[in-house]
């Protein structure tokens, strides 16, 4: 006779197969329902269970069995409703009755491809190991042979240049009465150069980010510029920016990005005649470190009315940018033309530079750009950069680490004597473990002129849950529990833009102090320690050898 309860549960998953197992404590739970309401993936749900209870009341044991229906919080075993480990449930629980726990034995990637659709997500490379940058330390400390600078008392000026810098032999100068003057008789293109703070906020689009998050970042950098006098700039990402901002004087704090979908550029081009100031720069995105070979992707559920209007597209459709610019034929011709066209649009007053994903072919790109006088910089985005939406395989298994990529490019520039002419901008994994200033300083010493940060700001300024253990990482579905990467008012209203702005300011002021603390004992205070590789060592011999720096143990 067959049991009424089937024991054959093949083709079903258990919570042990999932990356996070929700630990729910029945004794602490008051069944308020907040956790299930806040869960972005509906991984937990209110449910009922039949409980068998044996009780004995009285002096003699007289066990009595009773059965009752109780309400519980149950974790789903549907692969599409997996617990992301975000911890929003823990955040809202008044009694500390629930929390997700990482399950190192999970088999998530074996199953997350239902319908033949590979796993897509937001976030970053799921590799919790320290990056090469975190193996670097600053080992040349001036003490007794020479006095160290005092980070607290000496004057420090932490700035960098964004723009093509002519070599001294190309400067249009003449000597008049023992003084150098501009030689106006020489009609030579004078490239625009901006003096900015060397840590920037990297490209995150107004569609990928929620209105409150984007507004918070924008207010933060504006405050830094106007009140703190720190010229921190922010890149927009693909997708334009609000028309009012385009025509405001604050546009100078923004780097406008044009990418392969050209989203938002109708509005930008139309606004050019009415702009009261120039943008800081134009970034042409050719690649992104988190998902090399893929274009930008904004899922339909994030294309709400505001986004559709800014981008000039219908509402509620997926917006996949092509992996490459459709007009791109070759770097010598089409890319050069695109750089020149963008420069021309603003009367050659705005630096224009390409951004590529970290790659072994970066030096070839670099050398082509060196021959293009309108290329203002080269931005390289390493494999540990973040994204709002991409295939897991792209994020986890494709790309190039930033440290060796930047070092190779810098040493190539040194070999050609052009190390000060084409600034290198590094990004991807800076501040992965929270050491944002140290990672940035290490990249300067390896040869970068500036760095950009994205994920770090999201985590530090808005409390993004994401990490390298695949926690949360649902930026792509528009259900961000923090309200950072969503267009749902219900979610983004959780985020107070004023508080984000305050945190942005705090973050950059902290970075500034920490950079001084690093630079002071190395004896650098008026210029960035670009290429000062003798101050840097690795605690890993292979990394040291690869980066051509010292090894310490």
């Amino acid at each position, binding site marked *: 006779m067959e049991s009424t309860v089937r024991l054959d549960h093949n083709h079903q998953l258990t919570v042990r197969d999932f990356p996070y197992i929700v630990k729910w404590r029945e004794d602490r739970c008051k069944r308020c329902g907040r956790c299930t309401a806040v869960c972005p993936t509906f991984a937990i749900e209110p449910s009922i269970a039949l409980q068998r209870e044996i009780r004995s009341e009285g002096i003699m044991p007289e066990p009595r069995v009773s059965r009752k229906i109780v309400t519980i919080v149950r974790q789903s075993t549907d692969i599409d409703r997996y617990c992301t480990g975000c911890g929003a449930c823990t955040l809202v629980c008044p009694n500390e009755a629930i929390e997700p726990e990482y399950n190192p034995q999970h088999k998530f990637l074996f199953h997350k491809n239902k319908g033949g659709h590979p796993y897509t997500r937001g976030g970053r490379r799921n590799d919790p190991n320290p990056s090469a940058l975190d193996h670097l330390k600053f080992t040349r400390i*001036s003490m007794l*042979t*020479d*006095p160290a*600078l005092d980070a607290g008392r*000496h*004057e420090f*000026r932490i700035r960098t*240049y964004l723009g093509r*810098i*002519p*070599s*001294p*032999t190309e*400067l249009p*100068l003449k*000597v008049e009465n*023992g*003084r*150098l*003057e*501009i030689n106006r008789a020489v009609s030579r293109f004078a490239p625009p*150069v901006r*003096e900015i703070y060397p840590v920037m906020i990297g490209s995150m689009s107004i569609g990928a980010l929620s209105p409150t998050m984007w507004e918070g970042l924008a207010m933060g950098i504006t405050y830094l510029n106007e009140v703190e006098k720190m010229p921190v700039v922010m890149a927009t990402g693909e997708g334009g920016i609000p028309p009012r901002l385009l025509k405001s004087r604050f546009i100078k704090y923004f780097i406008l990005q044009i990418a392969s979908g050209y989203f938002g550029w109708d509005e930008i081009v139309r606004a050019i005649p009415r702009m009261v100031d120039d943008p800081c720069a134009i970034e042409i995105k050719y690649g992104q470190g988190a998902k090399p070979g893929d274009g930008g992707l904004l899922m339909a559920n994030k294309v709400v009315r505001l986004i559709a209007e800014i981008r000039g597209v219908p509402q509620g459709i997926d917006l996949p940018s092509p992996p490459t610019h459709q007009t791109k034929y070759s770097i010598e011709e089409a890319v050069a033309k695109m750089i020149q066209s963008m420069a021309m649009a603003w009367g050659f007053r705005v630096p224009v530079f390409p951004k590529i994903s970290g790659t072994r072919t970066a030096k070839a790109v670099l050398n082509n750009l060196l021959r293009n006088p309108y290329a203002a910089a080269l931005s390289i985005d390493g494999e540990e950069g973040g994204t709002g939406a991409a295939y897991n395989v792209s994020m986890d298994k494709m790309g190039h680490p930033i440290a060796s990529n930047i070092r190779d490019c810098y040493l190539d520039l*040194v*070999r*050609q*004597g*052009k*190390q*000060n002419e084409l600034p290198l901008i590094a990004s991807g994994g800076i501040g992965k473990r929270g050491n944002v200033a140290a990672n940035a300083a290490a990249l300067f010493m390896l040869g970068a002129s500036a760095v950009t940060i994205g994920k770090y700001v999201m985590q530090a300024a808005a409390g993004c849950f994401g990490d390298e253990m695949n926690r949360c990482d649902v930026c792509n579905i528009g259900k961000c529990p923090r309200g950072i990467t969503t267009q749902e008012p219900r979610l983004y209203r959780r985020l107070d833009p004023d508080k984000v702005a305050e945190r942005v300011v705090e973050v950059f002021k902290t970075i500034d102090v920490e950079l001084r603390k690093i630079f002071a004992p*190395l*004896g*650098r*205070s*008026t*210029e960035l*320690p*670009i*290429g*000062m*590789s*003798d101050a840097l060592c690795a605690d890993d011999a292979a990394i040291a050898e690869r980066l051509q720096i010292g090894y310490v143990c």
Partner: protein
Amino acid sequence: MCRLVAITSNEYLNPMEAVLALETMHEGHDGSGMGLLLKNLGGEFSDLKDYPILSGICSNEGLRAIDQFMWDAGFRIKHEWRPVLKPVADIRRRDHYFAKVYEYPDDYKERPFPEKEDLLLRTRLALRIMGEDDQSTIVFSFYPDVLAIKEVGDPLRLSEFFGLNDSRLKSKIVFAQGRQNTNYDINLYACHPFFIQGFASMTNGENTAFVPIKEYLMSRGVPGYVGYNSDSEVFAHILHFTVRQLGYPLLYYKDIITPLTPSEMEGRLDREALLLLKSSLRPLCIDGPNMVIGFTPDGACFMVHDSKKLRPGSVGGMKGRVALVSEECGLDSAIPDRDRSLDIFPMKYDMVIVSPRAEEVRVWNQRYGWTTTIS
């Protein structure tokens, strides 16, 4: 930290005067070496001002190699000075110390001086490379009217060793450095003053931005920008690059190594040019702690500091005789009867320039311009 003395005068000086001034700062150098650079030579060199002088040290084999090389290159010896060496404890004598004066090769005699300068530089570098492995030849300078002496040891003992007191060696400019060795191995090529094509400098302190500056200079395509056994050698090459290669007036040396901020440039008439220099020559910015004393081919001497004045330095004297030193006690020794109220202690924006023959001392402030103190 090394100790530095430069004396510039309208009369010929015995280099001993600079060595004695160094001695007053003895606690600042450890006797690990001394460098002497003499310009505008007198005595037996007074009639040889147009002929290049090769200064250096060599072994017996090295001497033969030098003579052969120079002969093959078309140089013909015209005069030779050798110190009369005296045995002194703790000074290890090498085979030959020399200053050889040459005639230019026939095909260079009528060429413009810059071409001659390039020939001299290439020749010096070839000789340096020739003896680099076995230290059989060490050459410090090869240039008209300039002579260099360097050796390991205490400056006072070295002067006795070289017999400087009784020497007929005289010059109107003497640069002397007492070394404070910061590396265990002592390399004579690391000993200041450094010289290249008429420009010289000596420095105290650590050059914290040595690597990027060195990489920048080495990638300029100028043959002489090599070596760098000392992190201070780049100061001489930045000077050469600024004035000779780029053709900028000397003052811009200060603007390049310690650039003003854009707001500080506001009062300068050349601010547009300065902004371009600041970005274009960003890798040559120093951050100290350094004090630099140098001379240019016309015989002007100068002193500058890093942008925070992390090193001392003073200038004093009278018309016709001025000293630039790392400590004031050196001034008291070199020019005791000067008007001390005219002593200059240059600050972070200042560049002190002593005109040729010490006719005039002027202080140029990067922000506020000129002040004349001695004329």
